[in-house]
């Protein structure tokens, strides 16, 4: 896997990743594990069920994971979704808008997954 090329292809920040995760080997090992991380699926199911409490927690977790990987674009959209789902904001909560923001997260997430798979095949 060309880690730098992969980061560039998903709008991630390779330099930050290196600072946080310290070396390419560990980055690569963790990136491959990301394929099996259940957070996104849990988030998706929670939103389908209109379970916004769980959705908030999963979005929050996805945000944290994305930040730790320095997947910049994915973390940006996850932050927006997390803040939107935050329970303190529940009075003005708009479920339809939440699902719209989720589409942005889904696009970024699927791109990351696709690029990981492409890199693995190489």
């Amino acid at each position, binding site marked *: 896997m060309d880690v730098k090329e992969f980061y560039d292809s998903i709008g991630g920040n390779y330099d*930050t990743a290196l*600072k*946080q*995760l*310290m070396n390419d080997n560990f980055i690569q090992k963790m990136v491959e594990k990301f394929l099996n*991380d259940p*957070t996104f699926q849990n988030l998706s199911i929670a939103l389908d069920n209109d379970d916004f409490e769980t959705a908030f927690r999963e979005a929050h977790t996805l945000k944290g994971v994305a930040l730790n990987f320095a997947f910049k674009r994915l973390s940006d959209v996850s932050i927006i979704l997390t803040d939107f789902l935050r329970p303190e904001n529940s009075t003005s909560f708009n479920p339809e808008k939440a699902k719209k923001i989720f589409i942005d997260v889904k696009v970024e997430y699927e791109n990351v997954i696709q690029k990981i798979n492409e890199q693995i095949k190489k």
Partner: protein
Amino acid sequence: MSDNKKTILIIEDNELNREFLINILEDYKCLEAENGKVGLEILKNHADDISLILLDVQMPVMNGYEFLNEFSLHDMYKSIPVIVITGSKISEEEKCLQIGASDFITKPYIPSVVLKRVEALIRLRESISLLNEVKYDKLTKTYTSNVFTHYFSELLKTHPRRKYTCVLINIKSFKRLNDLYGEEKCNEVLVSIASTMRSVFDNDILYGRFSSDRFAFVFESKSHDYNKLISKLKKQIYDTVNLKYFSINFAVYENVHGKMQVRTILNSLYYIINSISNQYNVDVGCFTQKDLEELEYSYFVIENMVKGLDNNEFKVFYQPKHNAKTKELCGAEALVRWNHPSKGLIPPSKFVSIFEQNGFVTKIDLFILNEVCKNLREWIDKGFKVCPVSVNLSRKDLMQIEDFSIFDQTLNKYNIDKKLIHFEITESLCEYGDDILEKVRIIHNMGYLIEIDDFGNGYSSLGIIADIPMDYIKLDMTFAQHLEKQKEVVKTIISMAHAMGVKTIAEGVETESQLSTLKDLKCDSIQGYYFSKPIPHDDFEKYIKKLQRS
């Protein structure tokens, strides 16, 4: 914990996030919990080992707030700092701070930031917990044992490759000194020992006070010669403390190192002090490989004795006694053997003295009595002519057994006549005063015959025959071994015994010529390898069966 790494508990639901932290905390041992509930479970068993907790706030099942609420209820967790992992929301941080978090980190994890915060908190926690303990002993102004132990283990941890020598100083019979001279005088003694240590020791020696009458010091082995240090210290201490009956001894453990536990080192030194304390001409003892093996063996014995008794690992062996004149079987001594499933036969020398010390000997002796009665009943029922069997009673038995009717009860259980059971007590008993002798009298008055074991083994004079109720004396086996030289002594003992109506048994008889000499000296019975070594139940059964046929 066997390694010296400090332990951090990570409570975080996402596996990847935990792994990011573990990667950063590579110098720590990490325990993982996927939610607060699991975290509390781990704390229950490992609280003492955990130096710090990293806690995520947003988790299913039990989140960070709920965890902190529960956590703060336990006093014993109070000293464990918690770092909360937050989403950098001021409100979140405030809430956690109110319920007991110590610090925060946010995602993404920046290795240098995480490490700095973790290190700082652990260090802070350690220095606080040390301050909480009293650092110096009030009287002698040396470190307390806790502080000494702490610094000692830090020393070993910081320099794992260096070798250190640890010495324990013990004041002999300190309680007796207290009785003789009073507390104030004895405190002065402690103070002057401490000040002697201060003046003799260089700065590179760590020392402190242990319990009421002990001090310890430790130094790098290559920087001092412990013999020189000890003799210098000894001389100065005896020069300053000029008190009759005051004496000290030393236990030395050379070349201890970072892979060893301070507790173990100190326990080993206590062991040495105990083993040299009753030798009046030895005042320095060194812990050796052999001591280590013996210490471990004694732990093994102590840890396995109860199970051994429950599992029937203890066996009775019988050593026959024969009439010196007619050579007929006239009795047997019951001896205990321990057959351990993995260690095999454990020699009595490895466990009897330990059992005597910790009192377990009474359980064993009563067990032996029961086995003997059971076996006798079995043989009587099979139609054999049986002989009296003597059972050993230790000094501890006489002190611990409150009601000797337990003997009668055991015999009655198997319907055994009192004539068939003798009790052997060792001659050294006479050293222990009237109350013990009174107990022997009680047993004798109950109708049991008493044999005095190891007679002539350094303690007794013939005079004790008058004091202790007895029916037999067993001549110590050293008499049989040096019979030619000691012939006159043996003759005197035997005739004196006979004059008082006491019969004699010679132990350790191995040869025909020993037998014939003893017969000539009018010794009544013979025990020893000449006839038979101690043999197990089945062999002894064959033994009595064979004798009856012939």
